[in-house]
């Protein structure tokens, strides 16, 4: 595997204007204003954080995994990566990263994909799609399943080989690692703190993550 580069932030948690811990299996939907810094802390290590972003003023202008990786010619996200929308806008820029790389190919788990991937009987395990659907149903933004597309998986490791193989590998994150982004425009963030128990994306032990915002 390539060498991972770690970059630290100069921001201190005590100066944050928002500080919230999301338990595994729960969702979080929140506005982030242009210019704010947004940090996700992997409190206990190797916890996948399934994340979508939307232009706060136009929900069809939303995070696009394919545009993001193609425009940067890289499938991994890390410091310097611009998170690009379907309309070609930079929603946020990753400005600090003590994990080293993050996935955007693996998508979110769902009842149906768990059935396909693991066993027909896995249908009733909790999953990220259900968390996303409940969050948008309870929100006042008017979103629905049509708005749920291909997400980022912060702290998740999905290497691709030159021959075109793809696997969910053991994580490269650890306790206290974080990723920090600067919002380049007003965005709405939608997070599912992943409850997956069938693969190593959460080291088989889903744990809480901490979310911080600075003005």
């Amino acid at each position, binding site marked *: 595997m390539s060498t991972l580069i770690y970059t630290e932030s100069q921001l201190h948690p005590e100066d944050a204007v928002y500080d919230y811990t999301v338990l595994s299996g729960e969702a979080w939907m929140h506005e982030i204003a242009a210019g704010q810094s947004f940090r996700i802390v992997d409190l206990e290590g190797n916890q996948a954080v399934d994340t979508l972003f939307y232009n706060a003023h136009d929900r069809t202008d939303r995070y696009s995994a394919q545009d993001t990786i*193609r425009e940067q010619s890289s499938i991994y996200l890390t410091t310097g990566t611009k998170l690009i929308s379907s309309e070609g806008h930079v929603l946020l820029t990753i400005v600090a990263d003590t994990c080293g790389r993050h996935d955007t190919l*693996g998508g979110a788990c769902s009842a*149906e994909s768990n*059935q*396909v991937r693991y066993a*027909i009987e896995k249908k009733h395990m909790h999953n990220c799609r259900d968390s996303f659907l409940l969050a948008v149903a309870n929100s006042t933004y008017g979103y629905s399943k049509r708005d749920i*597309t291909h997400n980022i998986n912060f702290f998740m490791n999905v290497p*691709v080989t030159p021959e075109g193989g793809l696997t969910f590998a053991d994580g490269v994150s650890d306790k206290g690692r974080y990723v920090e982004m600067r919002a380049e425009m007003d965005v709405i963030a939608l997070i599912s703190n992943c409850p997956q128990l069938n693969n190593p994306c959460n080291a088989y032990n889903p744990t809480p993550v901490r979310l911080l915002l600075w003005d």
Partner: protein
Amino acid sequence: MTPSPAIPSVRLLFEEDIPGGAMWSYALKRHHTLRLTAIESGANVGAMLYNLHQPLDRLNLPDTLKAQHTAKLTTGNVLLSDMGHVLCSISADTCGWHDPLAGHSTPALVRAKYGTSTYQEDRNAFHRNARDQFLIELGKWGLGKIDLVANINFFSKVTVDGDGKMHFVRGNSAPASCVDLRAEMDTLLILNTCLHPMDPDPQYHPKPVHIAVWKSDQPAADDPCRTACPENTRAFILTEALFRSSSSSPPPSQT
């Protein structure tokens, strides 16, 4: 990579040549097969797929790739919806690699690469981009921007190196390269023949493709797409369950 079977003429429903830079959509019925054939080298066909009867049940490339542990598409792979259904199987392929990663061109990308080209000036030779073509063709079915999903680029190859960098590989498809999509449920196909967004050729020269559709057979119990991996077998079980009430005989995986 597998040879493509001859299409029995009595089963052929229609054939059509699609010029480069064009768009096309079609409701492919269950167990009908659509063959895309490259007429020249360097072809590219951008594709989005939807359950014809419920477009919210739509192509999900992350689910497709992780279920089959692949970052490329070829014979034996299935194209999964986000509801765990097999929309189409790739039942034959002489090309060996189709790109599920790089997405599609936008107006800004085509303008930056090939310069400004308006209809006013260039008439029907004006430059087309895949985003606009997808939106036009989706609009014909009552769909729009909110329904855009990650797309496949048939005939194109993008590899990923050890550092995660993406590389477009030239010459992936020869003239007469073809790929077969067998529908396992009624599938709305939204296609265009715009240039691949990472094609390094400085000339705007999108390539034509030939399309043929025929009545194929229901996949057998030992169908290579069904048996390629346990994940595919389970996806077929979930898909065939949709049709059990309207089917006079049980599907092969249930016998």
